[in-house]
């Protein structure tokens, strides 16, 4: 690689936090005009490296050199790096929901003359940028009125408005459905043709393998290797995963022999309306069953109504005007409140553990017991000694990596937080466990542990419902998979018959157009 072909070179980057070496002598070389993937487990140091690059960790707080377009850079703030044409788009989008698309694009960079905003110019420029990213929305549409996928495109348009040369995307497709993901990746390819270099960080290895020209693997704060994806040697996903975890994963899913018993939960003709737009059916006449010792999967694209179905069953925590029947062990039950649902032996572990699952400013033990304090209490008084013992048991059984159950949950890694969420619901001792995206945002090693826990639950006679956006995951762990599309159950396939293709076919089945 000749030097003028290199847009970015990071050399010998080391960064130490109190007690932790986050980065050790990391090297990253990105060629001009390529898409460069960065892979690594959670906590490997990918985000830290990008924070160093963007100036979020200012010059002086790390060791090593950054060369951008062959010039040494000493970024003190994000503004410094953006000035040079380096723009980072974080996993959590930084858009203001009440402002329009155009206002967001030019936020901090207002199209103004002498302090007065030129709205015509703002909207006209925004429209041009939207055309470039392929977003068919009016520039004056409010951000809160468009979906996450489109918001992601607005972020990219905003980056383009800053004359971006190097675009960094941190987990850009984590919250997107397959269609939006595909569109985003197409956009990255077309930006590449326009001369924009991109760095993509992602957990979705198939995606990153498909789009990248080169991939750098980081493990434990060190560069492991940079793989040339356009070379003669074919780089497989297995190879990348092996380098990420440092060991071969002989099988990504643990084996389980199913012992399926009697039906535990049956949902009949379940319909849920949108809480604000009450004429819209989010779940439309869905029916499903799950039995003792069985793991079923719910597959569907974003907006298919999987989470909404689960939450409406779990104490009507989503939706309005809910109709349908729930049978537990053959008896019809009502689940009007979360408390009622728990009493009937139903548990729901949320997809958004930070928002709905955990009290991040409280400790591990109190989070674990929070759904079942009644079990620990006599006359309303909590037995704290017993509570510690319970928490200790789950720490051991679930392999939660923490020095103490008194540690704050907010300080744990994503995988360990997920184990706390699971512990909380397993301690509630339900008959039916609904796990919504149980492995989202956690690393490969921890995923395997979660799968093992799911298998153990099924072996213990629980009925498990897994909602996941990753089809291989559903195929790997479920006995039976339901596909949802636009709120309807469009089919179910036993594990033996299900393939990614057959599921995707059901997941994209459109509703017949009825007269409106």
């Amino acid at each position, binding site marked *: 690689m000749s030097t003028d072909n290199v847009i970015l070179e990071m050399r010998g980057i080391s960064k130490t936090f109190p007690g932790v070496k986050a980065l050790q002598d990391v090297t990253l070389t990105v060629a001009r005009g390529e898409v460069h993937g960065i892979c690594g487990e959670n906590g490997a140091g990918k985000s830290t490296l990008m924070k160093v690059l963007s100036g979020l960790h200012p010059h002086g707080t790390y060791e090593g050199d950054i060369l951008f377009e062959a010039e040494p850079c000493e970024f003190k703030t994000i503004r410094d790096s953006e000035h040079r044409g380096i723009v980072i788009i974080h996993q959590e989008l930084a858009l203001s929901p009440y402002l329009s698309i155009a206002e967001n694009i030019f936020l901090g960079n207002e199209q103004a003359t002498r302090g007065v905003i030129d709205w015509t110019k703002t909207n006209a420029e925004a429209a041009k940028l939207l055309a470039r990213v392929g977003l068919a929305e009016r520039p004056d549409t409010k951000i809160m009125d468009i979906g996450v996928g489109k918001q992601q495109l607005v972020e990219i348009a905003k980056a383009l408005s800053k004359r971006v040369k190097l675009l960094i995307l941190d987990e850009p497709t984590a919250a997107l459905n397959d269609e939006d993901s595909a569109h985003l990746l197409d956009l990255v390819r077309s930006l590449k043709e326009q001369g924009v270099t991109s760095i993509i960080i992602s957990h979705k290895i198939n995606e990153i393998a498909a789009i990248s020209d080169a991939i750098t693997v980081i493990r434990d704060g060190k560069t492991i290797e940079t793989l040339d994806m356009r070379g003669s040697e074919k780089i497989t996903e297995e190879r990348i995963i092996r380098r990420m975890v440092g060991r071969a994963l002989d099988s990504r899913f643990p084996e389980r022999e199913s012992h399926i018993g009697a039906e535990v939960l049956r949902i009949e003709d379940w319909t849920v309306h949108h809480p604000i737009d009450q004429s819209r059916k989010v779940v439309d006449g869905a029916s499903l069953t799950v039995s003792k010792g069985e793991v079923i999967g719910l597959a569907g694209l974003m907006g298919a109504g999987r989470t909404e179905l689960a939450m409406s069953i779990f104490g009507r925590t989503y939706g309005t005007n809910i109709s349908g029947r729930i049978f537990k062990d053959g008896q019809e039950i009502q689940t009007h409140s979360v408390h009622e649902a*728990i009493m009937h032996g139903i548990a729901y572990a949320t997809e958004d553990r930070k928002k709905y*699952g955990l009290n991040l400013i409280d400790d591990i033990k*109190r989070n674990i017991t929070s759904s079942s304090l009644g079990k620990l209490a006599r006359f309303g008084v909590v037995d704290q000694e017993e509570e510690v013992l319970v928490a200790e048991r789950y720490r051991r059984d679930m392999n939660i990596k923490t020095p103490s159950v008194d540690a704050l949950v907010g300080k744990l890694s994503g995988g360990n937080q997920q184990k706390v969420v699971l512990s909380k619901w397993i301690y509630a001792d339900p008959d039916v466990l609904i796990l919504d995206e149980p492995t989202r945002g956690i690393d490969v090693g921890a995923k395997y542990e979660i799968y093992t826990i799911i298998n153990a639950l099924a072996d213990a006679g629980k009925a498990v419902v897994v909602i996941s956006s990753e089809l291989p995951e559903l195929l790997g762990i479920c006995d039976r998979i339901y596909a949802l599309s636009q709120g309807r159950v469009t089919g179910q396939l036993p594990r033996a018959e299900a393939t990614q293709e057959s599921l995707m076919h059901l997941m994209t089945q459109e509703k017949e157009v009825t007269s409106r």
Partner: protein
Amino acid sequence: MTAIREYLGRNVRQYGIIGALIVIVLLFQVLTNGRLLMPDNVASLVQQNAYVMILAIGMVMVIVAGHIDLSVGSVVAFVGGIVAIAMDKWNLPWLLAVLIGLVVGALVGVWQGYWVAFVGIPAFIVTLAGMLIFRGLAIVLVGTTIAGLPPGFNAISNGYLGNFLGYVANRDMLTLTIGALAIGGLVLTQFRARATLRKNDLEVEPMAAMVGKLVLFALLLGFLTWVLSGSTGMPIVLVIVGVLILAYTFVLGRTVFGRHIYAMGGNLNAAIMSGVNTRRVNFGIFVNMGVLAGVAAIVTTSRAGAGVAAAGDGFELDAIAAAFIGGTAVTGGVGKVSGAMIGALIMGVLNMGLSIMNVDPSWQKAIKGLVLLAAVAFDLVNKRRAGGR
């Protein structure tokens, strides 16, 4: 040694606030030429600030749950007025009047709790309305002042427990006994908690840190007991406050109700998804605040010896300030009764010391404002440092 330093580092907030209290006490002791800690002043420090401590207990629960209560000052005037009327106009025995005061306080709590918990109006607005409503009602009911209350009632805030146990070396035995029981109880519970942790092989704080903390508290309690036993004896209101502190420390730390308050303040959504009945908990918090405001009203009316329409002016801010100085998080989810009590003491010592020094009340306000700001700033800086990355 490093273990202790590390432990102190992690708990700097807890020790910092106690240290601040001690520094402020010593400072005023010097500035007032030793008058701050004279026996009569110690007794009236307790008697004059009992209302802050009582209200701060309820306020901690309100703030931890993520709410605020701006109405407590007006509620104190309203309930105090009714209690005074019950004795003066209706000629009811004072004990019955006290009971009526507690019930009316609870009803006020029911009223505000209903709007917050069941209708879903933010507590800031409900209690802002309550602030106006109950102040107005107090003025309507009381006019300006209802004086001439029975001595039994006035003794609640101005009287002392009799010396049933006689004197030893010119010191009231009853006060000494209560003090000794308090210190003994404190030491015993701490060691038992430690033993339980030990038994289950769990991390315990370093022995030196615990002993240091206990010695500090024992000295504080011991000093208070010693001073009071040598002069006035045990103020009745101190017994009331002491019982409330113990009871609410237990409620917040050990009961399901208390734990649900922390869960809601820490992450409301997660609490709902864990099956916490948030309406009932919110309702309970405000009913409880109403009852405590009733207690504060009784104490305040008794202290003044009269029902006053303007009573309790600014009490809500004193209570909120005490809670925040004591480390209660503005965003909810974090806070302790013990912290708020130390916060209330800091405010009380400031009041007392500045009054003894004849500092203009306007300046007193300004100084208290600065102390509140400093305490919360200290907290934030600290958290940022602890947060590290």
